[in-house]
């Protein structure tokens, strides 16, 4: 049980990552694939946050007396996640707008049926 409570965030993050990967690799519908990418992104963001998280920690305010460095949450992963979220939004927005165009051209979102380009 101690193991579980210690590593629960890592377990959750990697479960999300693998669920996302599974959806992207297996699902046929483009919208579902995009949802998979979104879940994958969320998993990675959770993982990055967990790297710097300390239970019952606070923001790194150095001017506060009586606050030790080992009780401060690492702020760098949070900055990384902020950037990663923005990048993820850009990719997903582009993907969804491409899906709209794809549907206009082919009348379907089933990726197995869209194969004009091949090796």
């Amino acid at each position, binding site marked *: 049980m101690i193991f579980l409570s210690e590593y629960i965030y890592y377990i959750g993050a990697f479960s999300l990552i693998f669920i996302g990967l599974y959806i992207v690799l297996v699902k046929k519908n*483009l919208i579902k694939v995009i949802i998979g990418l979104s879940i994958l992104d969320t998993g*990675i963001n959770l993982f990055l946050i967990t790297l710097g998280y300390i239970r019952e920690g606070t923001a790194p305010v150095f001017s506060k007396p009586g606050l030790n460095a080992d009780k401060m949450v690492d702020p*760098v992963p949070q900055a990384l996640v902020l950037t*990663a979220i923005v990048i993820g939004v850009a*990719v997903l927005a582009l993907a969804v707008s491409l899906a709209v*165009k794809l549907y206009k*051209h*082919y009348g379907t979102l089933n*990726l197995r049926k869209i194969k004009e*380009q091949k090796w």
Partner: protein
Amino acid sequence: MVNPVLLIVIPLGLAFAVPFFGFISKKIEKFIPFVALLFNLIVSLRLFPQVLEQPIHVSIGGFTPPFGINLVAGPVGILFTAIIALVGFLVSIYAFDYIKEKDQEKYHILYLLLLTGATGVVLTGDIFNLFVFFEILCISSYSLVAYFGDKAGIESAVKYLIQGALGSSFILIGIGLLYGRFGTLNIADIASNINSVHSISIFVPLVLLITGFGVEAAIFPLNAWLPDAHSSAPSSISAILSGIVIEVGLYAMVRVVFTLFGASSVLNFLLFLGLITLLVGELCAFNQENIKRMLAYSSIGQIGLIVFALSIASSSGITGGLFQLVSHTLGKALLFLAAGYMVYRSGSMNISSFEGMGKKMPYTSLAFTIGAFSIVGLPPFIGFPGKFMIIKAALFKQEILFIVLVFFILLATIIEGAYFFRVVQVIYFKGGKGTLIPKREIAPISVLIPIFIFVGLIVVIGIYPKLITDVLELSASELLNRADYIKSVLP
């Protein structure tokens, strides 16, 4: 001294200024990329002599590394910056007349963003910053592939986006694992501590980063997007994708393998991967009827050859690989530009529609032929010294394994020759028999200028390779001596 930050800031700022210039006049929009990249080209060439003596370091915001984000303008960085600026500049001239349809301002914004991202990747000294610039590069290239909005373009952009987004996710997980292990994002700082931990715990991030960058660099099992994306993008963008984007992916991979991890144990694996990529690319190219697809598969083959040369990991091998990289950038950009204009005129991408082009468009056909000969590796063009140096470096290893591998490289070159000569034969010697001499359609001057500058560079460097080999040798030594890199960033 010019600050290397300007190499990133000026194109980035001008990219978002394009719509504002559009308020003044729609006609000046297309000159913005031209101006920005001319600036980059001049600055990077002016920085060259200084960088060759000592790398320039810039810490952004005054935080000294390993704390802030830093830029490292070493020989490799400035070499790549100069190549990006040169090719981007010439292709922006080509786009004056080539890009006529739809919203031109979007094209120019995305084009500048793509090149900003590429410049940022090669200059940065921070692994997460590298990821951010890499994403700028990727997102703008996804949307540029779909620029025409036609059936093929959208389909290949979707494929490219899904594969690229998966690759980027792997990179981010890898960076997260590295940060968790070392608590820093500075490449030099991670590199100096990488030997202090057990090799199993850095194996996973290494694999994730190689896979992630390998998607963009189109290494064999990860290159399914490339032929579609390169063949359905506008030709000016195909030239950039083939000449810059995959090279930047390759740069990121090489930087990770050589500098960040110093992982000599994966080099043998990369050697075989490169060779397989080479053979698969050339064999697929041989089968194609579509000219742009053929060129795209040929790019895969060339990338395989470059990966092979870099994985030899001797000074002469890396120099040869970088030389081949420069030659591929110039040659393939030229081929895509020339073929793009011929496709534009003939209205079809089928090779058989090029019959009689040698008489109809003599200058463009000549340029295409020179590009094709250079990629195959005929003297006196730039492709010859590149391949020669790679084979010499491989034979210099004096191992049976390398002699066998060289045999495969030569075999691939024969295949390459076969399909390129077939196109040249169609252009010059097929069709037009018994009919009147077709009317000449000379391409506009904005198309001919960049094409002939490429031809000039290919011939001049091909005849006198010493022009760039000194720079390449210094770049090779920067990649090989990671201790020097670490010492120069963290004094």
